């Protein structure tokens, strides 16, 4: 049913309704002129924010009733945006089957189980499904994945053990490693908006285009000379090169009242590659980089918000550390790493609470920045959905029931300012509901064994 070029005004319908039978639902044919009782417009932006190591449930859970509640101590920093929040309580990550932490981060957005022996998940993550619907091919970038202090553990920043939350939307659903370097991200996203860059950014763009043009030719020519299996690999590479070419052809962001380059900060004390080298000799402890996390995290959030406001992309993910979270928090006067407080050093509830509370403050900043931006009569937050979660709920047991999930924003008609409680339903139900907010009307997502359909009482 193609309707996009055919809109009836309400008056026309009212005139004609008595005379002719209209088979189609009225409201749908009227397009944007929907009445208040119609389905709300789909959400336009999606952010997911990952924090490691669950929470401390009895310090997290609100008290009160659905619409009149007091946030627990861990969430209390979010009180100023409580009317924009939906505390989603009582969901279990039933699909998180596999290694304790890895299965959690795999299932969080994908709703699938971990393949045996430390493998990946079995399907796409919702952010990528959403990106393929509203962002890929329409924005300069289909999605942006960013992580702070990502390579603190055994994985050395490799994708095995698994530490990525995002999985490609097409088979074989490869994990997507996040971007780590704040300076590179800044140049890539906001190079043309950066007044200090002068003509460099334009020259760099022109040079990039001629290189990609050269590569396009080389990969195309080679593909035609190879057997089917090898040609497939080269074609895949060519496809990705063409995606980059296309994104360069998309008009660079222009400064508007909503879109401005974020304020650059000096991050020279932050080494985004700490821990990345597979043969590093225990130099993972990097106190300078740890100390810079708050500053870098803020910049990363600024860049994500602006990449939405500037329409560079419609979908983003922010990972606060990998699942091992073996970095310290000098600004909180915590000298051991997060995993130590979770269970490596025996569960330390007070320290875990302090860390979770700090993450709530960061999330407050993100949401407030989004709420500040006027997208034409409503805020960026109003047209977005922001999903905040973790890979487990209870650190010492690695338990994944009663997940500490938050939604925020008004996209897709999400009714916020509430604390909704579900009777230990599978979190796959939430994932499919989030897709529904973006106009994707499927009724199951992830491993169907763990999905009984969308949640009620979200919109």
């Amino acid at each position, binding site marked *: 049913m193609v309707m996009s070029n055919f809109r009836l005004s309400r008056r026309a319908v009212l005139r004609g309704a008595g005379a002719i039978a209209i088979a189609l639902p009225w409201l749908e044919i009227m397009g944007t002129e929907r009445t208040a009782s119609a389905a709300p417009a789909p959400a336009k932006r999606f952010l997911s924010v990952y924090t490691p190591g669950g929470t401390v449930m009895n310090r997290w859970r609100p008290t009160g009733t659905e619409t009149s509640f007091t946030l627990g101590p861990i969430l209390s920093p979010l009180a100023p945006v409580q009317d924009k929040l939906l505390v989603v309580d009582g969901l279990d990550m039933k699909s998180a*089957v596999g290694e304790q932490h890895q299965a959690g981060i795999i299932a969080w957005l994908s709703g699938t189980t971990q393949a*045996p*022996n*430390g493998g990946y998940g079995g399907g796409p993550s919702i952010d990528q499904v959403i990106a393929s619907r509203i962002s890929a091919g329409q924005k300069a970038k289909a999605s942006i994945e960013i992580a702070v202090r990502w390579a603190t*553990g*055994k994985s*050395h*920043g*490799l*994708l*095995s053990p698994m530490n990525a939350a995002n999985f*490609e939307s097409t088979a*074989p659903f*490869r994990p*997507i*490693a996040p*971007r780590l*370097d704040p300076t590179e991200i800044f140049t*890539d996203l906001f190079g043309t908006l950066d007044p200090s860059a002068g003509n460099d950014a334009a*020259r760099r763009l*022109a*040079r*990039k285009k*001629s*290189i990609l043009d*050269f*590569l396009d*030719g*080389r*990969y195309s020519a*080679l593909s035609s*000379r*190879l*057997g*089917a*299996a*090898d040609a497939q*690999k*080269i074609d*895949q*590479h060519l496809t*990705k*090169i063409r*995606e*980059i070419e296309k994104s360069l052809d998309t008009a660079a962001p222009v400064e508007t009242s909503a879109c401005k380059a974020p304020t650059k900060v000096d991050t020279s004390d932050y080494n985004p*590659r700490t821990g*990345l*080298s*597979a*043969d*590093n*000799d*225990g130099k*993972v*402890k990097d106190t300078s980089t740890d100390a810079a996390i708050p500053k870098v995290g803020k910049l990363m959030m600024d860049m994500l918000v602006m990449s939405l406001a500037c329409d560079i992309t419609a979908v983003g993910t922010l990972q606060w550390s990998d699942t091992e979270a*073996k970095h310290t928090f000098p600004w909180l006067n915590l000298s051991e790493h997060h*995993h*130590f407080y979770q269970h*490596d*050093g025996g569960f330390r509830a007070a320290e875990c609470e302090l860390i979770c509370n700090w993450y709530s403050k960061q999330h407050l900043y993100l949401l407030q920045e989004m709420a500040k931006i006027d997208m034409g009569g409503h805020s960026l937050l109003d047209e977005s959905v922001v999903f905040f979660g973790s890979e487990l709920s209870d650190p010492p047991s690695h338990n994944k029931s009663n997940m500490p999930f938050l939604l925020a924003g008004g996209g897709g008609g999400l009714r916020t300012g509430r604390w909704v409680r579900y009777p230990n339903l599978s979190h796959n139900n939430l994932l499919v509901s989030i897709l529904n907010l973006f106009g994707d009307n499927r009724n199951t997502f992830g491993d169907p064994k763990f999905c009984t359909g969308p949640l009620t009482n979200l919109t």
Partner: protein
Amino acid sequence: MASGCTGDLGGFRSDDSKPIDDPPPTSTGTGTGPTDPAACEDGAVYPGRAPLRRLTRFEYNKTVRDLLGDTTDPAYSLPSEEVGNGFGNDADVLSVSSLLAEQLGTVAEGIAKRATATPEALAKLHPCASSVRAEDEEACARSIIERLAPLAYRRPLAAGEADELLGLYTAGRTDATFDAGVATVIEGLLQSPDFLYRIEFGTPDPQRPELRRPTGDEMATRLSYLLWGTMPDEKLRLAAQAGELSTKEGVRAHAERMLEDPRSRVTVRYFFDNLLPISSLADLERNAETFPTFSRTIGSLLHEETQRFLAHEIFEENGTWASILTAPYTFMNGPLAAFYGVSGVTGDEFQQVQLDTTQRLGLLTQAGMMAGTTHSNNTNPVVRGGFVLDKLMCQKIPLPTGDILARVKPPEPYTGKTARERFSQHSKDPVCATCHQYLDPVGFALENYDAVGLFRTTENDVPIDASGGVPGTDIKVNGPIELVQGLAQTDAVQNCFATHWAEYGYGLTLRAGDACTKKAVTDAFKASGYNVKQLLIELTQTDAFHYMAAQEE
């Protein structure tokens, strides 16, 4: 249940020559030859599969070091390879994500910038570039291209390719400077498929034109990446041009030369870092109260101990896999000797130390190996047994499926003073026993090493019963010394080692249809008396290395 544990065979066959759990056939086919090694005929040629390979991050780093002198290991900022064969170079699972394509550009930009940053850097590309005059710029750019591009592509340039690159120079030079133009060429080269991928078209064998062989340049590249993990050196390039690499003998001579070069040690180190559970020892967390002498520093020294030992056995002692598994010595420095409780070793330099062979013998009994196969403050015989079966015997034991997990609840919490008590449910419950009869006896025999690999005779004051066995054999053992002796004389262990090297060396996962290739490698290893260095040479002597399977259409 697709299990390697059903019935009483486990994954083991008496001839131990047939893969049990082959990967399911994929769209790229299952291989090219017979699937039964008994069908491999003497005198027949069984070409190897030659799927398109991409440089791994390890190889990329070494290659840009040799090509441009860039020692910054820039490829570590690329996303990691797919798991595949465990070495990150499995061509069968290669895929390109958007991030990889993008990051390849970012990495190339950084390298190009460094290579053109100063007059000294430019002079290294070509002498003409250090102080080039405006009217000579284009000629100099061409000189750089004609020197650099054949090295990057690992073959002579075809007609028009130099002009194509000069076009890139011109585009980069526009509104900018000479060095920007050259940097643009380098960025293009480093992202070109001719650099990133190992492309082999082959050439018909003059004697038997129905068979294709790698060209001289392609063979030089095969050899170089197999033994050095980098691009061919000058000697290999000249040998390729002189036709020296078109015979097995010619290739053998170069393989022998290359193994004497220190560069081969880096490859061997990489191989073992990926095969053995030692590369994360420097990050190992242990409870400080229970293990007061262990630290991350000790962890990284244990890593170094194992690598020093392996390098010495292989390169100085001409060691066999069996001698590595049962060597009566190791390497320690002062801090490490203190950790082990060995006296008479001081200072930071590593030195050879004789072992108390009632407590330790060979690779597997090194503390790093035992700590690396322990995930917490308690030993877990299943994890240790799983490592031995998977990595040393090439037997994949499947994780319990949902069905079994639903039927059998592990006791929670585990109780019992010793690991044997804690894991006794495995032998009591017949469902668990189908797999654990192979896993646990190996792990129990290693119980004399605690969670940081230190020797012990009791656990919680109860004497440890370290009896066990070698899976798939009649060998029963009492304790770790007998276990490693038993493993060292087991064919499955020898064949598995050779198979890992073949998969690493050929950059793929051996499939059912590669049975003759696998047989050729394991037979050659046996014929060499299981000599490790010889095995690396024999990898260059197989049909799989010298003949290419027809391209799949």
